[in-house]
C-alpha cells in the first residue's frame, strides 16, 4: 500500500516523470552530479486550455568511491506542481476566438521530493544489496521523462498503469550474463510487508524480457514486458494486471488488465513512435489509447518531441496534443 501511495503522490505532482540516471558532472573523484530539465506544453481538445510547465527539474548526486564496495545516490525532483495554466475567455462579446478574448494565467504551488535515495553494497560484480527510497521494478515505461519514447504514459489520460512507484525498503539484485533477478521488501502502513520480485532475460541479441510480481496488502500486480530491437525498429509489448484490494464504485472487485504495444522507428537523430494501449481499467471502464509521437535528438543532451494522443474511455473520446523539450546534464 505504501508503494501505491508513493506512486499516487508522485503522479499527482509529476504525472509522468520519475528517476533514471542521467549525465554525470564529476565534482570530485568520488562525487558526481547529474540531472535534467523538462519543459512541457499540453493542449486538451475542447477545453480551450493550454498548460505549460517546467514539468520537472531533477538533480542527483552519486557517491561512487573507486575502491569501495559502497556507493550512494540521492536525487531531488522539483516537479510539475509548479504549473501555470492559461485559460482563454470569450471576452465582452461572448464569442470565442475573437479579438477581445481574454487570457488568464494561474500558477499552482510547487514541490520538491526525493526520488532515488539509496545506499548500495556491491558484494560482487553480480550481487548487490540496496536500501533506501527505491523505484519499483515494474514497467517498460520509464519513470523519468528521459527514458520515454513519447510524452504520455499508456494509461487513461496519459497516466501510469503500474501499482508502485518509489518506496522505502531494501532490495537484493543478482545479475549473471543473460539473466537478472531482484527482490524488494518494504514496510507498509499496517503490520504486513510489501514485496516485489523481478526476473529478466537478455540472452538474445536486441531482446529484453522482464517479469515482475508485486504483492502488497493493497494490491497484487503482474507486469510482463518485452522489447526487441531489429535494425532501425524497436518493438515493445507489455501486459499489466492490477488486482486492488479496495472495491470500486459499484462495490465490485475487478482487476485491471492493460495491454500495450509500441513501435519506434529510428531515422538517425529523428524517430517516430506509434503506441496502442487499452484494456479494462478500475471498475469495468474500458479504454483504448492511440499515440503518435515524432521526436528529435538535437544532441546527446537535448531532446524534443511532439505527441498526438487519441483516447476512447467508455463512450467518451478526446484528443490531446503535447510538446516537450528536455535538457540533461
Amino acid at each position, binding site marked *: 500500500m505504501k508503494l501505491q501511495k508513493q506512486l499516487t503522490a508522485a503522479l499527482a505532482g509529476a504525472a509522468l516523470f520519475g528517476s533514471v540516471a542521467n549525465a554525470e558532472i564529476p565534482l570530485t573523484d568520488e562525487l558526481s552530479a547529474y540531472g535534467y530539465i523538462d519543459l512541457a506544453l499540453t493542449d486538451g481538445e475542447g477545453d480551450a486550455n493550454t498548460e505549460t510547465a517546467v514539468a520537472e527539474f531533477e538533480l542527483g548526486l552519486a557517491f561512487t568511491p573507486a575502491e569501495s564496495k559502497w556507493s550512494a545516490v540521492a536525487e531531488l525532483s522539483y516537479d510539475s506542481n509548479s504549473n501555470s495554466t492559461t485559460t482563454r475567455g470569450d471576452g465582452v462579446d461572448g464569442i470565442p476566438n475573437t479579438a477581445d478574448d481574454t487570457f488568464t494565467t494561474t500558477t499552482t504551488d510547487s514541490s520538491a521530493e526525493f526520488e532515488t535515495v539509496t545506499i548500495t553494497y556491491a558484494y560482487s560484480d553480480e550481487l548487490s544489496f540496496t536500501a533506501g527510497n527505491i523505484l519499483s521494478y515494474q514497467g517498460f515505461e520509464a519513470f523519468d521523462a528521459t527514458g520515454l519514447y513519447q510524452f504520455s504514459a499508456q494509461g487513461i489520460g496519459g497516466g501510469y498503469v503500474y501499482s508502485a512507484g518509489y518506496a522505502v525498503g531494501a532490495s537484493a539484485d543478482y545479475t549473471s550474463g543473460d539473466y537478472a533477478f531482484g527482490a524488494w521488501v518494504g514496510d507498509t502502513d499496517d503490520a504486513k510487508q510489501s514485496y516485489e520480485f523481478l526476473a529478466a532475460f537478455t540472452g538474445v541479441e536486441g531482446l529484453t524480457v522482464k517479469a515482475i510480481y508485486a504483492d502488497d496488502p493493497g494490491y497484487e500486480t503482474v507486469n510482463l514486458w518485452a522489447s526487441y530491437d531489429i535494425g532501425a525498429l524497436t518493438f515493445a509489448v507489455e501486459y499489466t494486471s492490477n488486482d486492488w484490494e479496495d472495491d470500486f464504485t459499484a462495490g465490485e472487485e475487478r482487476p485491471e488488465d492493460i495491454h500495450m504495444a509500441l513501435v519506434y522507428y529510428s531515422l538517425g537523430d529523428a524517430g517516430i513512435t506509434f503506441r496502442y494501449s487499452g484494456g479494462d481499467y478500475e471498475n469495468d471502464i474500458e479504454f483504448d489509447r492511440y499515440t503518435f509521437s515524432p521526436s528529435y535528438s538535437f544532441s*546527446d543532451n537535448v531532446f524534443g518531441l511532439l505527441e498526438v494522443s487519441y483516447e476512447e474511455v467508455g463512450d467518451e473520446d478526446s484528443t490531446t496534443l503535447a510538446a516537450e523539450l*528536455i535538457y540533461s546534464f
Partner: protein
Amino acid sequence: MKKHTTYSTLLALVCASFFVSPAGLDAQQISRDEFDSLAKRVEQLEASVRMVKNTQIEGLAAEAVSAMPMDMADKESLIESVVNTIQAKEEGANFPWMDTAKWASLKKGMSPEDVVATVGIPTLNEPSMHKRVDFVYTYQGRRVATAKKVEGIIRFYKGKVVEVEAPVL
C-alpha cells in the same frame, strides 16, 4: 638556466599565495568580480607555465646539443626530436588516449570494458537522450605542445559501441 629558475621561483610564489593559507581564504568572502579576476589570473598563469615549460625543454635540449660536433641543421632537428619526445611522454602520462593508433583499433560492437582497456578511462561518462544511444564516453584534453583542445566520443547502445568520433590529433 638562471632565467628559468627565476620564472619557476616567481610562479611558486604566486601559487603559494593561493594555497598556503586556506584558513585565511575561508575567513573572508570574495565578490563575483574578484572571483572572475582570480579565475582569469589562473588562466594567465597556466598559459605562462605552459610557455615556460616549453621554453625550458627547448633550452635544455639546446644546451645539451650545443656542445655536440654537429652542423646547425642537424642540431635543430635533434632539438626538435628531443622536445617532441619529452612532450609525447608527458602527453602519454596525462592523456594516454591521445594516440591515433588506439582510436583506429576501436570497432563497433566492443564492450565498455574493451574500450577502457584500449583508450583508458573516459573524462565523462554520460547517458544520452538519443533513443539509440544509452551512454556516451567523452575524452577531453589539451595537446601538450600546442594547447589545442581535442575531444573523442564513443557511443554505446545495449552495452556495445555503436559510434566512434575519434579526436583530431
